[in-house]
């Protein structure tokens, strides 16, 4: 295994350096970097051209310029752009926003995409599966800049207008209710009667909920309150416990219920400490949650149920913590919305410039500027994760060992989670590596639409100004991400699949 990793590492580094050479040569040959100076009045022209030639080393051959650049990079200096700004500084400013966007979109699309794909595979040829398949094809065919512009119009501008008087029309409520009913009824595999009932109940609950929220203008001043927090925490406890050890009152379920109850208690206990916390404090709370839940799972689970009780408790605790976090964030929404003059969803830039507010206001501010770009980026990479996890899950479900697992009488939950799902996930690791390049490209386009001054701006301006250094700064980050992800994927693949590891 160590030899495999070393070999992989060495080839990756070599390939990466050859790639920087190729990209540099191309970026330096995009066109004439002095074109704009040649239009200057004659008295300034000579000096300006000489100045830039000196700065960009245009009097040296391209290969020499590459090695000068490489020498700088190896000592941590990315050079300057054509007017003399420090590229290190530009990259530092650009990197944060793009990383947030790319990471959020990648993580969300893996979680949601794999989830949808697996469910759609388990319900092959149901209405849900057909709908998902069609949706995936539509997502594959969407031009990302078009979607981003649409989202900016409807998700930001019109949504902000709507928030001024947030009430839903009856037909909107009806459509959402019908949709929820259809989703829930197609998730079940039972007779027609039960499914119709599920459809009716889900649709009715959604409709009533939306009508109440709309009538009380909840959307303008949202929040969850202790009752909703308690209900969600309880549902999460039951859900996680069912997933890991079945729907019955056993120590696992007991541990999960205790964690959910502890979460609800801490919601009240922590109220005074959450007015304006720091990220450090929140991280500490998360660690504390994990520790307490681990202890609960360990001791309540006992010898027999420890293996399922510990992860279930931790998941329940973290989920409850997340719900409390969201609740607190939502409570700040009204005041935040007022402080940005009623435009909470931002259309330009990665954050409101010179904004000052509490922890929650800043959280909402970056959420408001991240949500739409992330959604746009999510749409393009979600599709491939859904498609591939569905295909891989279908293939695994046909394997002999799944039949064996069923034949020896394991419950369907164990068959799917332990035997099928784990193996079905293996091919997804390669997809993550492939996908990262697409996501980075998509991020460039989306940042352009939303007017972010981030990595995309670095690249596009660099190309338009025939200026290699900013382009190379983009490539250093993007190429490193691709190489690292590919390497991790290979190693994880080898780790997960003994056939590769041992050959």
């Amino acid at each position, binding site marked *: 295994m160590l030899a495999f990793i070393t070999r992989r590492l060495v080839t990756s580094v070599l390939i990466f350096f050859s790639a920087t050479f190729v990209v540099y040569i191309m970026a330096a040959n995009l066109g004439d970097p002095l074109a704009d100076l040649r239009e200057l009045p004659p008295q300034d022209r000579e000096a300006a051209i000489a100045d830039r030639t000196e700065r960009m080393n245009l009097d040296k051959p391209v290969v020499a310029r590459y090695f000068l650049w490489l020498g700088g990079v190896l000592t941590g200096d990315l050079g300057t752009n054509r007017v003399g700004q420090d590229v290190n500084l530009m990259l530092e400013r650009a990197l944060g926003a793009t990383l947030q966007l790319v990471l959020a979109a990648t993580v969300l699309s893996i979680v949601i995409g794999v989830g949808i794909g697996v469910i759609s595979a388990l319900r092959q040829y149901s209405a849900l599966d057909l709908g998902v398949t069609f949706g995936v094809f539509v997502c594959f065919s*969407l031009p990302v800049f078009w979607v981003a512009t649409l989202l900016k*119009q409807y998700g930001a501008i019109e949504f902000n207008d709507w928030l001024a008087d947030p009430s839903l029309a009856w037909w909107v409520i009806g459509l959402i209710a019908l949709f929820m009913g259809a989703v829930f009824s197609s998730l079940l595999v039972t007779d027609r009667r039960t499914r119709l009932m599920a459809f009716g109940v889900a649709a009715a609950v959604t409709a009533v909920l939306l009508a109440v929220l709309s009538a009380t203008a909840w959307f303008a001043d949202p929040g969850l309150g202790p009752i909703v927090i308690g209900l969600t925490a309880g549902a999460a406890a039951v859900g996680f416990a069912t997933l890991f050890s079945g729907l019955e009152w056993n120590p696992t379920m007991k541990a999960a219920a205790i964690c959910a109850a502890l979460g609800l208690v801490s919601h009240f206990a922590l109220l005074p400490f959450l007015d304006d916390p720091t990220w450090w404090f929140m991280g500490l709370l998360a660690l504390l949650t994990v520790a307490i839940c681990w202890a609960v799972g360990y001791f309540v689970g006992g010898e027999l149920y420890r293996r399922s009780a510990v992860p279930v408790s931790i998941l329940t605790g973290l989920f409850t913590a997340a719900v409390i976090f969201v609740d607190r964030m939502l409570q700040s929404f009204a005041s935040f919305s007022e402080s940005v003059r009623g435009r909470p969803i931002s259309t330009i830039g990665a954050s409101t410039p010179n904004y000052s507010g509490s922890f929650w206001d800043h959280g909402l501010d970056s959420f408001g500027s991240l949500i739409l770009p992330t959604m746009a980026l999510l749409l393009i990479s979600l599709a491939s994760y859904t498609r591939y996890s569905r295909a891989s899950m279908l293939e695994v479900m046909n394997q002999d060992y799944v039949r064996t697992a069923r034949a020896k009488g394991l419950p369907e939950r164990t068959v799917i989670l332990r035997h099928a799902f784990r193996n079905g996930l293996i091919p997804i690791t390669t997809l993550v590596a492939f996908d990262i390049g697409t996501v980075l490209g998509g991020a460039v386009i989306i940042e352009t639409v939303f007017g972010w001054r981030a990595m995309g701006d670095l690249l596009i301006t660099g190309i338009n100004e025939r200026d290699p250094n900013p382009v190379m700064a983009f490539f250093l980050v993007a190429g490193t991400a691709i190489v690292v992800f590919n390497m991790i994927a290979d190693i994880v693949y080898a780790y997960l699949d003994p056939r590769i590891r041992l050959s």
Partner: protein
Amino acid sequence: MVQPTPAAAPGQTPGTSDAAQGMNVKARTQTQLVIRRFLRHRGAIAGMALLFFVIALAVTSIGAGPIPGWWDKNHIGTADLVNGGRPTLGLWPGFLGGGGVHLGEHPFGQDNIGRDYFAVVMRGTQVSLVIAVIVGVVATAVGTVIGAVAGYFRGAAEATLMRATDLMITIPTLLFAAMVAVMWGNQNIVTLGLVLGAVTWTQTARLVRGEVLALREKEFVEAARSVGTSAARIIFKHLLPNVIGIIVVSVTLAISSAILLESALSFLGLGVQAPDTSLGKIINEYRTAMMTRPWLFYWPGAFIIATALSINFIGDGLRDAFDPRQNRVRA
């Protein structure tokens, strides 16, 4: 939805022939099987119909090259604004109380200087399709040859080609495509298509190489080699026909992603340059008009989606037709 094809089961006793059992069996070649499976794929057929409609509309309406089309306006000429430039297309039939199905003066509306938007969008569709097809064909051809050579020859040739492929994969497609488009692609749309195709073949190369690696160990290749067949002949006559399924699917998927790539580049201002136009360039030109003249934004987008979606469905149908294993119903 693969129908079990009626075929004589192996190990049948001679006495019970199919005719004796009353079964109507027809021998089908591999090609016939593929075509049959493809024609049964409803999504693919719908995609074919939609794609045919888009192509026919784009080509016949404003004509191609010197041949005039049936639409009397072009994408350059301007006219007075009719009805504020709103689309005059009517799809609400008269017997339902609407204005009847009609095209009107400017079915897709007009832009702010009075150009007929139908002609503009049709022109953009033509250009986008031409580029996408060139990219798809070039990328697949290059990828197939590189993949087949790398798979068939071991040693230095394979190592070099696969390292080159790895190198290409390290560079994000958008960055690579943007650079080659700026360097060589601004002159005309054909060169743009060629250079984009030259940087998007990696996926096909990897797929073809994987298949060829398995095929080269088969007996028929060994037989060919033992009678002294040249390497080129083995690759093109014996190996590539066996990976035709992958190649055909690759072409369609490459075309549909090329449409999106080209429109994204043109949207960023790095692809098709004036006086040429393409769907992505049109969207970029009119994206600020989203509030005041939304139709300038919707029509080109709808055509991009329609084209890419129909090609994706065709590709899916082809994949199922060539490789029906993926579609097994769970036992």
